[in-house]
């Protein structure tokens, strides 16, 4: 610090001039210089220079504090004025707070929902490094995603690629019957897998050694829940479980229950070696897709690179095995079956939201579409509420203009006024947030039931939710306040206070446009709700080709073996039972399905014929389900030859191109080859059944073949309408007599059938709720505007009445304007709604279309609602005594 102190000083002065006001810094510098001079005298120039600069830097925090101090005083003033304004216009504030809080609550629920959906599978510590093998089959113009790979794929990936750290294979299992001592339950969340599961996924072992728990055949690892269910505690190592009648399964480990936010929820994992896959060459081959295979990449390894190398590995092995099993080359096989194949890797974190078409999923996954739909509608609700705020603010502009004028005359800058208005909307937004939290606390249980989640209000305090929430509050405060702030603060005080404020033409037009927009949203949502529920009603009422009412389904009858027939005969003797049939093949989801190649007799290569559905049924199947025969006859007990007969549905007749199907023959290729040789047998067609919907109505009815045989996993009973409970009790007694200790599980065919449309029902409900909210918020706004304009026009109304207008005339005058707006909204929104919803409806191969009734109902409903909302205020204004109104002139 040897430089000239004078020069230093001047540079310091410039800083001070910036920080302090122009006039004020002079005295400050004066004092500074005086003290500086004193220090130079006492301690020398160097120390004085140091002191001088230190003072300048130490000034800065004081300066900042000073700024905050004064702005706080200003804000305090804004705050008081804002609260006064909010209190003095109670109705408007209520409308704003109510609307905004509903909008906020809806958006916050969306945030809750999205956060929960995004959390899936993230509990896995190595989640980012896990992906699974998927195959894409392309056939007959259809893409089929298959989640699965051949048995050898997992180990081959570990050996062949250094970037793969580990892999785990799963083999899905049907539900199993588990017994431990007296306790017997049916378990459906069961899978076969290997020890590496505990390395790849995060499922902490509570008992047992994760290295080798599943290495030996006949071993099983169970969840904590299952351990407590069967053994009442966790010390279960070495204990025995009986699974599907085999008593010698040993429990080798207990793992922590898998979290709710997982795409699988296994309660029991049986060891893969128990399946003895190697004994079945077809099952152990590269060309099966039965093993869900998950890969754990090494840290930093690229999944994309592995994905690129995958096809070469798989193609080579598959080619040799196709040759081995089918005697033809892979290319030949593919070209003959018209099939294309490709393989890929799907990241674990994509599974929950982006994987829903696949075959081989453990559970039904969610869909990113729900997130989008939900976000969109909740944002719309929020926008509607913001519009209310803007509309009411501009409508009140003339009332507040005087306030603006006076403030401006008294020296408020435009900036100050904008701050004032923005703060006001921020305060309303914060109050609305408080109310929204209240609303959420109230509706969360219902919301949980609707979405099948279990979210809690406490997670509101979590930064994942709190930050977006805070952001929303500020955003809404800003959006709602910005336009009024700009609009109102622009008034010229001279013209306002002279009393000739130009009637805010701009405000009026904007208001109308916004009201139209609000009702457009309501119209689209009402229309959407109507269409969805109309389609659902159609699905429930449409003839599905069989009679789904009054059919009782009993599960697990295969446990009885041959005695299943005894049970069937016994039940048939009861008068309440009209008919009974044993078959696992039912027109409901999760029933048995078999797709095997079926070919016309003259087909030279029947093995590569496209597989179609073959259902194994008994003699009473057609009568029990009341499936209609289109031509020919049903299976007959009298004719021995019917064991070699089949029934076709009409789609199959078209598929095979039969003109006269009766008497034709078909080749059915046995799907499980013995020693690599396929069996094929000829069946003659004895009848044709009318097409019936055995899949959801989303899909067109596919060709299928009914064949006589023994499939005993379910017993269907067509029962009388009366005393259903008694019938079930009878069935239970018969079941217990034959299969003591086995679980008694039954369901109704129509319920199982309708459950296929749960996701549509959910969309319908979300739409319905949000449509209701949209309409409610729109009406709140309309109510506010109507109140306001009725109040402003009291004199006009009074004069009208003095000159002989009736109350009805006045009401008509007041209501007309709003009805016009709602009408325009309908005109604009209905085409949009039509376009949107016809897209939705097209997802169903069988649909009612969008329907003209929907248009009429939507328009009628919106107009009626608007009338009721506006009419109340208008009638009140119109029925006032003109003498009283005009007296004050």
């Amino acid at each position, binding site marked *: 610090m040897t430089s000239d102190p004078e020069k230093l000083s001047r540079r310091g002065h410039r800083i001070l001039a910036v920080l302090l006001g122009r006039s004020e810094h002079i005295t400050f510098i004066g*004092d*500074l210089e005086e003290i500086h001079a004193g220090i130079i005298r006492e301690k020398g120039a160097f120390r004085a220079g140091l002191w001088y600069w230190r003072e300048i830097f130490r000034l800065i925090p004081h300066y900042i504090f000073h700024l905050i101090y004064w702005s706080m005083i200003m804000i305090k003033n804004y705050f008081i004025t804002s609260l006064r304004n909010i209190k003095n216009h109670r109705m408007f504030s209520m409308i704003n707070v109510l609307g905004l809080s509903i909008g906020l609550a809806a958006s916050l629920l969306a945030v809750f929902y999205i956060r929960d959906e995004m959390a899936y599978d993230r509990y896995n510590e190595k989640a980012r490094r896990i992906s699974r093998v998927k195959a894409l089959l392309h056939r007959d113009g259809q893409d089929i995603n298959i989640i699965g790979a051949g048995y050898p794929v997992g180990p081959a990936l570990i050996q062949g690629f250094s970037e793969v750290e580990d892999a785990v294979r799963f083999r899905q299992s049907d539900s199993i019957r588990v017994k431990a001592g007296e306790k017997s339950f049916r378990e459906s969340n069961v899978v076969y897998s290997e020890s590496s599961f505990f390395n790849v996924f995060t499922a902490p072992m509570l008992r047992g050694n994760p290295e080798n728990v599943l290495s030996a055949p006949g071993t099983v690892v169970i969840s904590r829940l299952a351990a407590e269910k069967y053994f009442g505690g966790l010390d279960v190592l070495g204990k025995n479980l009986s699974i599907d009648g085999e008593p010698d399964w040993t429990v080798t480990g207990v793992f922590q229950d898998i979290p709710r936010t997982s795409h699988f929820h296994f309660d029991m994992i049986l060891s893969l070696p128990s399946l003895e896959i190697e004994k079945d060459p077809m099952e152990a081959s590269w060309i099966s897709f039965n093993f869900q295979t998950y890969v754990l990449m090494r840290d930093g390894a690229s999944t994309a690179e592995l994905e690129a190398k995958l096809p070469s590995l798989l193609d080579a092995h598959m080619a040799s095995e196709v040759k081995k099993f089918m005697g033809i080359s892979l290319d030949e096989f593919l070209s003959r079956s018209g099939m294309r194949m490709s393989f890929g890797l799907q990241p674990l974190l994509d599974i929950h939201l982006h994987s829903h078409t696949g075959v081989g999923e453990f559970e039904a996954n969610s869909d990113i579409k729900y997130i989008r739909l939900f976000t969109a509608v909740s944002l719309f609700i929020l926008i509607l509420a913001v519009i209310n705020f803007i509309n009411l603010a501009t409508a009140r502009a003339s009332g507040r203009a005087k306030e603006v004028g006076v403030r401006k005359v008294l020296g408020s800058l435009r900036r100050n006024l904008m701050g004032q208005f923005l703060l006001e909307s921020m305060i309303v937004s914060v109050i609305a947030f408080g109310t929204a939290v209240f609303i959420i606390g109230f509706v969360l249980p219902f919301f949980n039931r609707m979405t099948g989640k279990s979210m809690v209000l406490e997670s509101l305090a979590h930064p994942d939710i709190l930050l977006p929430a805070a952001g929303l509050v500020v955003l809404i405060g800003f959006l709602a306040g910005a336009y009024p702030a700009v609009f109102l603060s622009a008034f010229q005080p001279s013209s306002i206070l002279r009393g000739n404020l130009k009637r805010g033409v701009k405000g009026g037009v904007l208001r109308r446009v916004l009201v139209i927009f609000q009702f457009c949203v309501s119209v689209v949502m009402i229309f959407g709700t109507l269409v969805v529920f109309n389609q659902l009603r159609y699905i429930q009422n449409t003839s599905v080709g069989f009679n789904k009412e009054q059919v009782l389904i009993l599960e697990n009858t295969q446990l009885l073996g041959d005695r299943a027939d005894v049970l069937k005969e016994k039940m048939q003797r009861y008068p309440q039972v009209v008919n009974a049939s044993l078959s696992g093949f039912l027109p409901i989801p999760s029933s048995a399905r078999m797709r095997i190649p079926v070919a016309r007799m003259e087909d030279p290569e029947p093995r590569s014929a496209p597989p179609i559905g073959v259902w194994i049924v008994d003699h009473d199947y057609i009568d029990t389900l009341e499936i209609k025969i289109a031509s020919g006859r049903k299976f007959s007990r009298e004719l021995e030859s019917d064991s070699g007969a089949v029934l076709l549905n009409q789609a199959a007749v078209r598929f095979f191109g039969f003109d006269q199907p009766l008497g034709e023959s078909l080749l059915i290729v046995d799907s499980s080859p013995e020693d690599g040789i396929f069996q094929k047998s000829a069946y003659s067609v004895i009848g044709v059944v009318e097409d019936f919907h055995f899949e959801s109505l989303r899909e067109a009815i596919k060709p299928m073949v009914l064949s006589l045989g023994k499939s005993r996993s379910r017993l269907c009973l067509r029962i009388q309408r009366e005393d259903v409970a008694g019938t079930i009790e009878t069935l239970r007694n018969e079941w217990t007599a034959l299969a003591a200790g086995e679980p008694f599980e039954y369901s109704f065919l129509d319920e199982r059938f309708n459950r296929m449309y749960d996701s549509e029902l959910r969309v319908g409900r979300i739409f319905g709720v949000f449509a209701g909210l949209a309409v409610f918020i729109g009406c709140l706004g309309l109510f506010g505007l109507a109140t306001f304009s009725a109040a402003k026009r009291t004199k006009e109304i009074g004069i009208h009445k003095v000159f002989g207008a009736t109350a009805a005339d006045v009401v008509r005058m007041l209501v007309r304007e709003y009805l016009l707006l709602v009408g325009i909204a309908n005109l604009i929104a209905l085409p949009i709604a039509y376009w949107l919803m016809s897209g939705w409806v097209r997802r169903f191969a069988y649909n009612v279309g969008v329907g003209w009734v929907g248009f009429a109902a939507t328009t009628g409903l919106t107009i009626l609602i608007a009338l009721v909302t506006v009419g109340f205020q208008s009638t009140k204004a119109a029925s006032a005594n003109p003498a009283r109104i005009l007296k004050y002139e």
Partner: protein
Amino acid sequence: MNMLTKLEELILLAVWKLGEGAYGTTIYRHLQSVTGKKLSLGGVYFPLDRLVKQGFLRVYSGPTTEERKGLSRRYYQLTEKGFEALHDINRVNEIMWAGFGKASCSSGESG
């Protein structure tokens, strides 16, 4: 009563003590010698400014010196409101501090 910060209170007292001679430099030096702390000039200046705006102090210009490079002094004087505020503080202090001189760590007023 107005709740002033301790610093504001000390500044008002310093202005009163210094009487005719109360301007930035003297107030700063006085406070520094009384408190024994290395105060920042800004830390004195901004509160002074605030006290003027709030009406506790009034300002008048005074002569300059060679050392001040010709920049005028700003003298401060207590206003009526300033005196009142100090009296209030004094009253409250007397009530609050009554008997404290004899107090020791172990005993509070009540027990």
